[in-house]
């Protein structure tokens, strides 16, 4: 597992209060992890802080699974 994936999952566990083994790469934030739209706004902010990337609103709207987040970060971090 990549370093990005580890750090993303840690943030998701902390913010959504879910069990770590539920946070698979295929997991959907809303359907599988109980997030609502504001939780996703908060997660995106946390990813921006953690990785020093900017995630514009139109990109954020396309992030619906853990894998989507990891992929965006890996492609855009400096």
């Amino acid at each position, binding site marked *: 597992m990549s370093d990005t994936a580890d750090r993303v999952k840690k943030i998701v566990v902390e*913010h*959504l*209060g879910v069990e770590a083994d539920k946070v698979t790469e295929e997991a959907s934030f809303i359907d599988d992890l*109980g997030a609502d739209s*504001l*939780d996703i706004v*908060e997660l995106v*902010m946390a990813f921006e*802080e953690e990785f020093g990337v900017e995630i514009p609103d139109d990109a954020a709207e396309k992030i619906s699974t853990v894998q989507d987040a990891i992929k965006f970060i890996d492609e855009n971090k400096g």
Partner: protein
Amino acid sequence: MRRVVVTGLGLVTPLGAEVETVWKNLLAGKSGAGPITRFDASDQKCRIACEVKPADHEYGFDPNKRVDHKVQRQVDPFIIFGIDAAGQAIEDAGLEDMPEAMRFRAGCSIGSGIGGLPGIESESLVLAAKGPSRVSPHFVHGRLINLISGQVSIKYGLMGPNHAVVTACSTGAHSIGDAARMIRDDDADIMLAGGAEGTICPIGIAGFAQARALSTSFNDDPTKASRPYDVARDGFVMGEGAGVVVLEEYEHAKARGAKIYAEVVGYGLSGDAYHVTAPHPEGSGAFRSMQMALKKAGMTPDDIDYVNAHGTSTPLGDELELGAVRRLFGDAINDVSMSSTKSAIGHLLGGAGAVETIFCILALRDQIVPPTLNLDNPSEGCVGVDLVPHTAKKRRVRAALNNSFGFGGTNASLVVKLVED
């Protein structure tokens, strides 16, 4: 007329996070005061408070018991305290699994004096340091005063009236009084009612200290600082926590075989129309508030055996309240006991009136009145009344009166009594 009774109690206070623990500690004369641990208070004029203790403390509060992890991360302490106290009250009343028809007729009236001050403070610092795009999306609804009522209604599916009072330190009493009226007026059969506060943060302590409201002479001896009626009193000690009761229409409670603690029989409200922080110099607002509560209860002062005073330990307020009680009670003053439990748990601001009404109810149940701690030398205007110094006192308690007065000159009084058929 529809009668309103109390069928459930919930408390989160500096002396415990469970009703019987708080009551035992209060009657034992314990103090919840100590040095502020929530933040570094070394540059503050006031460096003490009555904090709700952490989960690993002998009588600490574990937020994980009743508040979802995600909610805990999003909201201010006052909401967490309020959700837990409401949950305790619902469990105590045996109402965890209400059918839908009952939930349509069950509501919430849980307020706060100030609301989410710690979160407003911390997010303002985030805004200043990192800009608007770093402000939490949960900032607003994690701080709003009506969000205890909101969260509790969502958690338990309560679809009746959803209300939240904001009247500074009278909030808890107004919340219970207003909710009782909603039941009386047939808007609901069940109301979760009370108040909460959690403002032990740098700007909260600094703000009240700058208003010259807090005790600042006892930073090295915190348990001595809250000393209502005593000559050495110099301001209140900030408390935090929540008190919530289940109010229920009497026949509704009887029909489901509920345990009934007491009946809410009187509610009085008034305005001082005098000054934003100072009480009226003749205590006229306090007098009229108590007078109205007694009138509504159809009682005279000699029916009241216990007064849980507002008694915050400020130089002005204590004597003015006592003077108003003395004028209203006349000769009946000789038979009443009056104490300030703020001497033990500090001033819970918007939570105070609810927590103290619960103490009145427990006084009725156990026929004992809690003490006023640190009352070593009553000041001149505070003699000739049984202020229950130092130790709890067994006595007859048929009915009790709670007073709450707030900034802005807002006053509320509640009368509770044991239920008679």
